[in-house]
């Protein structure tokens, strides 16, 4: 069970017009695994995770999520998106809905569960991210850190098999980074499969099973955090780590 493959990307190529964003990417993620993706901006790390729930289409290669091959059919995209939760850099909460409504909408519409059940689930996950008392507020009334925790709860309400995080702390004021990272660490400790695009190397050390370094649309190097940080193999990795660790 622990070794079951949840996501398998093979030979994935992605172009934006003439620009190649992903070059022959292979990635296998097992159930329960925590992966941190890092790399300079424009290296394709966000694009990679956005391909997993088909926010971006790929031109070549294959992606299989939880046994379902992702193709162009609406059915396949549906099935995969039900299994994959995503948290964005800019939160993307629905501003015209309360926190509770934000969390209830997708389970009601996409999973077709009852309102009562959706509300109970929403409340449960809001409490889990320590924001249960803010359920009736609108996103604009919350701090950035609180909004991002709501976004995490909203994704969890769909009971995904894997969570994708696209630079979840990059848009936050420094004093709010910790509360979001703590939430993510809690999630990791509960056994959630996670792929995180982040520059928080402390988080990577603490949580990741594997750290993957990308540059120019390719996976350059990967390894367990210890080895990765202590003994990076490629010059580009060394250079990147040198730059990023100097700032932390």
């Amino acid at each position, binding site marked *: 069970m622990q070794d079951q493959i949840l996501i398998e990307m093979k030979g994935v190529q992605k172009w934006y017009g003439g620009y190649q964003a992903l070059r022959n990417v292979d990635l296998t993620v097992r159930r329960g695994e925590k992966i941190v993706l890092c790399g300079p901006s424009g290296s394709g790390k966000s694009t990679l995770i956005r391909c997993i729930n088909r*926010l971006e289409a790929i031109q070549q290669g294959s992606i299989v999520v939880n046994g379902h091959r992702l193709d162009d059919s609406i059915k396949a995209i549906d099935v995969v998106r039900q299994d994959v939760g995503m948290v964005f850099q800019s939160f*993307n909460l629905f501003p*015209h809905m309360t926190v509770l409504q934000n969390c209830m909408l997708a389970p009601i519409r*996409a999973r077709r569960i009852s309102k009562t059940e959706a509300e109970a689930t929403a409340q449960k996950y809001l409490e889990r991210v320590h924001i249960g008392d803010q359920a009736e507020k609108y996103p604009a009334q919350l701090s950035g850190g609180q909004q991002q925790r709501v976004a995490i709860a909203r994704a969890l309400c*769909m009971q995904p098999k894997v969570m994708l995080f696209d630079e979840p702390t990059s848009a936050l004021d420094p004093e709010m980074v910790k509360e979001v990272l703590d939430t993510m660490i809690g999630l990791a400790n509960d056994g959630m499969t996670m792929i995180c695009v982040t520059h928080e190397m402390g988080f990577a050390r603490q949580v990741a099973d594997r750290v993957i370094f990308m540059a120019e649309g390719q996976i350059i190097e990967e390894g367990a955090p210890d080895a990765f940080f202590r003994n990076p193999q490629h010059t580009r990795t060394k250079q990147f780590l040198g730059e990023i660790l100097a700032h932390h």
Partner: protein
Amino acid sequence: MTPHFGLPEFGFLMRGLQWTVLLTLVAFVGGCTAGLIVALLRTCGRTTVEWIVRIYIGIFQGTPLLLQLFVVYYGLALLGLKLSAFVAVAIGFTVNASAFLGEIWRGAIQAVPRGQTEAAMALGLHYSSRMRDIVLPQAIRIALPATIGYLVQLIKGTSLAAIVGFIELARAGQIVSNQIYQPLLVFGVVGAMYFILCWPLSWWGSRVEARLALAAQR
């Protein structure tokens, strides 16, 4: 006794006002319904459909409304479809409004941040739910000031309906004025009636706009 501006004349103007209001309502409700379809088709992501709708919008925005009313009233009659003046102008104004409102709402739909749609897609929401629950509620707020502005234009624009013999407020004013030879007085009253209809709407529109600007700052 020379004719003067009395109760019967005023009553005649009031009936004209009623027709103006009725025509506006029919055209606005019809235009909103059709305009929503236009806006959705215009943003559906299928190139062919979007181009067809673009041409539709182009035709109705690029030719005079007067001409469009002629075509509906006289053109359809030539084809054997004889419509009453009211039905003809109601159709003409509805179709015209659908093009203008469609463009206003197309802009509003596209002004909703892309991240909203992406978050909805990532949550597994389908197109209908993404539009109904996420995009349109936000787009309507964005489009409200421009929509109210268009409604004000529409109220005043209905005076064009007189051209095919429909007696609305402006035409009623002309008739009364011709009878009593007091154009300044009659058109003064007519103008005041239009003003009472339009001014509160304009005022509401600018209030909504100010409120939205304030909300955007937060």
